[in-house]
């Protein structure tokens, strides 16, 4: 029997992908956000123009800013729109490093975890290779959690040499939730700015900027039902990074570029809708996720759940497994052929699946890291999706094992 028959034929396009379990990569736009985006696209007006059309567009941007600020516990003036999470992370990490080291040249150390998203990881790496930064990679435990005492020790060794600290709110691969408020409080004691990438957390956890005590926080549209290409960096009052993009200074002289009123409005609609329904959605996703874990472990008893156990230290929509004896790219291809979309973590530019730096930092050996898959749930996920995975994962893993490494 040819295995493809079990899935009733191979999907021929993305639209045919019936089971989408990759919401952490990007999640479908909410209908309300699509409506807002398309409506706004029909209108003209640069928010920086002084005439009526410009004022109208500016009003859209400012109302959106207020809506987002309210949803995430920030002041409107603390919301800096960007082109997305990567730009916001670059602005926070590079901009704060430049500002802090210019004010005091002793400040060279950048404290970060090794499980950060590449937008943070590679920004820190760039600062090290071009700007004399000294990265300090704070070790995480086997669940990818950064323990507060580790940060405390790193800072107290020489507080005056720290430029900034950056620790993600929730990990994009294994879904581990970091104790951000506790960590930020430690940095605050020493007057060190603290940035967090909350791109994955914002849609599923109660992210409150003011209550968290962080100085800078990254969010993005397309992980919460908004469009790709728009995001924001929340900057606490008085926190002034040096700009990465220079030009018109549209966003408080911190970020330049014509404001994308349609995208910003759709982003705000998505943030508003997501935050309003977040708690119910989180418990719905957690139930689905728990069932997904149970079904996978039932079909593949030696599969290993990576990251924190289901509970407060794990994103409700995340399940991440290692399948011993398998290559992740073979698993992904076999599932893809059955219409199930998931992720091996990051791939290189050419498309080669890479062993996850997150798993390696958690102490996982390379072979196990290479045989790993992330399944991430979101607002369109259903029990049928989970059952579809449960129905084929055993056979897929068995076949991938035959292909070996």
């Amino acid at each position, binding site marked *: 029997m040819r295995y493809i028959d079990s899935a009733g034929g191979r999907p021929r396009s993305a639209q045919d992908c019936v089971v989408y379990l990759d919401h952490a990569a990007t999640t479908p736009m909410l209908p309300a956000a699509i409506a807002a985006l398309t409506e706004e696209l029909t209108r003209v007006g640069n928010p920086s123009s002084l005439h009526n059309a410009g004022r109208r567009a500016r009003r859209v941007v400012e109302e959106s800013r207020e809506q987002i600020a309210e949803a995430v516990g920030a002041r409107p003036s603390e919301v800096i729109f960007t082109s997305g999470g990567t730009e916001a992370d670059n602005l926070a990490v590079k901009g704060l490093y430049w500002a802090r080291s210019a004010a005091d040249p002793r400040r060279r150390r950048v404290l970060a975890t090794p499980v950060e998203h590449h937008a943070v990881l590679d920004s820190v790496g760039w600062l090290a290779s071009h700007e004399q930064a000294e990265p300090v990679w704070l070790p995480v435990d086997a669940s990818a959690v950064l323990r507060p005492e580790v940060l405390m020790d790193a800072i107290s060794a020489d507080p005056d040499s720290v430029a900034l600290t950056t620790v993600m709110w929730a990990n994009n691969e294994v879904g581990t939730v970091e104790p951000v408020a506790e960590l930020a409080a430690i940095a605050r004691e020493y007057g060190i700015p603290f940035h967090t990438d909350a791109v994955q957390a914002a849609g599923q956890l109660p992210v409150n900027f003011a209550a968290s005590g962080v100085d800078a926080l990254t969010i993005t549209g397309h992980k919460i039902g908004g469009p790709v290409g728009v995001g924001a960096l929340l900057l606490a009052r008085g926190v002034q990074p040096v700009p990465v993009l220079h030009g018109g200074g549209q966003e408080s002289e911190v970020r330049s570029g014509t404001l994308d009123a349609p995208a910003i409005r759709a982003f705000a609609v998505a943030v508003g809708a997501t935050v309003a329904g977040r708690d119910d959605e989180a418990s719905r996703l957690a139930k689905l996720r728990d069932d997904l874990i149970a079904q996978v472990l039932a079909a593949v008893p030696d599969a290993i759940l990576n990251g924190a156990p289901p509970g407060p230290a794990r994103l409700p929509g995340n399940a991440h497994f290692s399948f011993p004896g398998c290559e992740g790219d073979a698993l992904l291809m076999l599932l893809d052929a059955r219409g199930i979309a998931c992720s091996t973590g990051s791939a*290189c530019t*050419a498309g080669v699946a890479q062993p996850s730096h997150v798993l390696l930092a958690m102490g996982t050996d390379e072979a196990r890291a290479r045989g790993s898959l992330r399944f991430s749930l979101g607002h369109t996920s259903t029990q049928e999706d989970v059952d579809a995975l449960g129905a084929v994962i055993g056979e897929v893993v068995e076949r991938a094992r035959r292909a*070996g490494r």
Partner: protein
Amino acid sequence: MTSLRVLAAMSGGVDSAVAAARAVDAGHDVTGVHLALSANPQSYRTGARGCCTLEDARDARRAADVIGIPFYVWDMAERFDRDVVQDFVAEYARGRTPNPCLRCNEKIKFAAVLDRAVALGFDAVCTGHHARLADGTLRRSVDQAKDQSYVLAVLSPEQLGRAMFPRGGSTKDEVRAEAAARGMGVAAKPDSHDVCFIPDGDTRGFLAGRLGSAPGRVVQQDGIAIGTHDGAYGFTIGQRKGLGVAAPAPDGRPRYVLDIEPTSRTVTIGPLESLDVLDIVAERCVWTGCPPPTGPRDCLVQLRAHGEVHAATASPDGDLLRIRLARPARGIAKGQAAVLYDGDTVLGSATISATA
């Protein structure tokens, strides 16, 4: 005909793109795979913009889009380094002249990739090679100038049984025209040349980096030393330039590399006619176009890629194959394949281990 599950190896070039498209047209269920073979897999992530491999991966992906097939990149870098690159270096170190394309077909495309494909549920591997294959019999491409049957002749009957070369029935020009008609961006992409893992073409420099300095003598046929060299691996049988000999031959005629002796690192040079070879001993025989012969067999033999064809008689001798040429041939290097043909049909192949 039966619809097979076909894995199309897509290099990013026009031949493999058209081959994959033809496999789809033939009714097969095709999945495209680009093989990442970089000796340094890290280069894919760090500072790789503009690198050939990245561009090739992108071209292959776009061709798969146009054809409308799923596409993945398989990381074969470790296997490639072990089975092709290291083998290439080791063969030169033994004083032989390997053909890495042939080794890649034998060990990577129709071994590591084929095995993985079969384990994952595929029936066959399709490539863009210029050769024809029907009922397990390999033939030259209709485009004689581009023919690649030589580098495929090392494949066993089992390997050929799961291979597919859908573009071998067309000339290169026809393939380019077809790619353009199909709307493929790679239609006008230049052909690749040389050894893919030595992009600058400096084989001697590449080998020197791997093998280091291994100086030895350059001697005449009478054993008199007339020069030195930094590594015998930098020489190939029949080579004329770069011999490192200051004084001209007494008769003023050009001299050529006649023999490379790896243990003493002695390179012997001499006049052109001393390159003449009549008898060849070859090992690792593979028969695909006929049953393994039990006695002498008249055939044609090709002794290097794109080399000329010689009339010969091949006689099995245990595990070896003894080939007697009808007329002397020159510049026959150990390590190259001797591929036997009947007309344009491949009978089999063996690796040259000795000449006389």
